[in-house]
């Protein structure tokens, strides 16, 4: 691309940058509010600025527990997505059948077309105490198991929500690992499993970490499914912030929680980024064609 064409391109980014700037400004205002104080029993906010809200948020044990729980739950969800999602992404990348690939793709993204609330209620119908799963269990003479208003329901619905993010990101990376490399390994005497472990798996590690990082970031910000399927028994960080605003009207405290959680989340994702860079150094040519 020539020089003038590139400088023209910069102007095209302007609308997007303006919108991003607006959002960021809104967040800065929200963050600044965290330094002010709520007048108890009202929604009004007064000065003088201080870090009292931060002190209070950190002092409350519930906040610390929920934050830690959110970080761990997001990790757990990412782990489940890796276990379920890798074979799916691998199948999508390697199947010679366009029908199989499109079927998986369809199954993954079709529920995206319905809204989140619709999906949450669909899960309630399936998993509820009188839902499809438990009705079936009872019909064959088994005890019903509680699948909603607990952690199980939150995990099931969130895995369903997160899987497309993970699978589609990993699929993109796996497609760049030539199938001929696996054939070369088998031609040299490696079984199907060994050729996967020795060749495809290491070459897909960068894409795997990228997909897991994205999944982890999205999982951290979960709100809807914990609210509707957790029944308040498995709140995540976003649910706690929501409660602070709408139940207690303490916007400054909620802002302090949001800022703190954002910093912690950024630190965790930064850590994953470091891991990705370390892997890239270990496999200097991973993902590139020979």
């Amino acid at each position, binding site marked *: 691309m020539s020089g003038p064409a590139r400088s023209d391109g910069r102007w095209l980014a302007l609308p997007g940058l303006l919108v991003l700037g607006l959002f960021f400004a809104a967040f800065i205002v929200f963050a600044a509010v965290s330094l002010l104080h709520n007048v108890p029993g009202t929604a009004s906010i007064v000065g003088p600025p201080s870090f009292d809200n931060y002190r209070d948020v950190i002092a409350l044990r519930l906040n610390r527990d929920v934050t830690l729980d959110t970080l761990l739950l997001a990790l757990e969800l990412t782990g489940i997505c890796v276990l379920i999602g890798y074979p799916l992404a691998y199948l999508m990348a390697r199947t010679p059948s366009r029908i199989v690939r499109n079927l998986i793709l369809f199954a993954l993204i079709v529920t995206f077309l319905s809204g989140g609330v619709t999906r949450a209620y669909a899960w309630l119908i399936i998993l509820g105490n009188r839902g499809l799963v438990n009705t079936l269990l009872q019909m064959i003479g088994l005890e019903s198991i509680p699948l909603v208003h607990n952690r199980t329901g939150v995990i099931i619905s969130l895995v369903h929500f997160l899987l497309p993010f993970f699978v589609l990101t990993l699929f993109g990376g796996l497609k760049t690992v*030539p199938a001929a490399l696996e054939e070369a390994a*088998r*031609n*040299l005497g490696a079984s199907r499993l060994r050729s996967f472990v020795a060749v495809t798996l290491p070459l897909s590690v960068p894409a795997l970490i990228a997909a897991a990082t994205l999944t982890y970031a999205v999982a951290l910000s979960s709100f809807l499914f914990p609210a509707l399927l957790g029944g308040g028994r498995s709140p995540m960080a976003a649910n706690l912030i929501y409660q602070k605003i709408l139940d207690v009207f303490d916007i400054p405290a909620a802002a302090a929680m949001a800022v703190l959680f954002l910093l912690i989340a950024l630190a965790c994702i930064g850590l994953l980024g470091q891991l990705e860079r370390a892997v890239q150094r270990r496999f200097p*040519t*991973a993902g590139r*064609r*020979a």
Partner: protein
Amino acid sequence: MRDDPAPKGDPRDEPARLAGNRRALSIAGLTKSYGAQRAVDEVSFEVPAGSLLTLLGPSGCGKTTILRAIAGFVAPDAGRIEVGGVDITALPPERRQTAMLFQNYALFPHMTVVQNVAFGLKMRRLGRAEIAAKVAAALALVRLEALAGRYPAELSGGQQQRAALARALVTEPQLLLLDEPFGALDQNLREAMQVELRKLQQRLGITTILVTHDQQEALILSDLIAVMNAGRIEQLAPPIEVYDHPATRFVAGFMGAANLLTGKLLARDATGFDLGIGGSRLRLPGAPPLDAADEIAIAVRPEAIGLDAAPAEPSGDGGFVGRISFLTNLGSRLLYEIELAQGLRLTVEEQRQDKTRIRAVGERVRLRIDPGHCTVLRG
């Protein structure tokens, strides 16, 4: 390698040792369909031990499917594949003693050259010292010792190919399978690598199957060429035979540059037959093909036609007379395009030396077609 008492790392020993692994390949009735399409249609051929056979044909002719069936990546619908008399048709790829050189080499990008070459030996669970010795010998064989520690992305195209070749040969395979191995190289390097590969193949005496669509490449490398079209072998013969005497119209066309003429059978006797080609008469030795009810097609190599100055007036003796319509000067050779009175267009090739007179475009010429170099085609 100092701790290795026997000097088996000496690269000069390698060819002799590998030559002990000579095996013949036999393919019988190989068939493979994709949907309604017959990619390979009851193909049978034999490759003597130590020979190089080229499967030559346009894309989609089934040549790659045959190669992949030999390697075990394609399960044939019918037919047998035997190496040294042993049926390997049902074996998975990893249990076959075949080594494939892939089109883009398929070197493992996360492994160094040494690790790439050692991979097949590790899969065979050889000892560490033995692997080191064999890898060193294989790298010496392709003159890549100095780059052993590099990653594939740090090698040039020719070096990558040599690394892939070392990786394939180090396992001492019974068959070497080459899938369009020179396609990714530029012209000069390609010719050098072709010659190098052919020398190595002859030195090791390893039975080799080459797949290519490049007839030049097939001529340079092969002991035998199987010209393929639409899932079948049209002709299987030594390169010179395929070049000089193409069996079918397709082979003549695919081997390139041959003039195709069609004519009617005018007369036949004990020593030959006369062919009428657009008002001219050509006498050919031997007997016409049995099914020559209608038209007979013949191929004439451009270098098998001579040019004389044409008489000022049409002689009416049935000779081939025409006008030079285009000239290509290739330095050592001249290519004349001749437009015949009958509306035919032929290419004539002349060797050129210092004193060769270059004929001008527009000049009228009379063609001397050597009947001994005409090939009657079937189909």
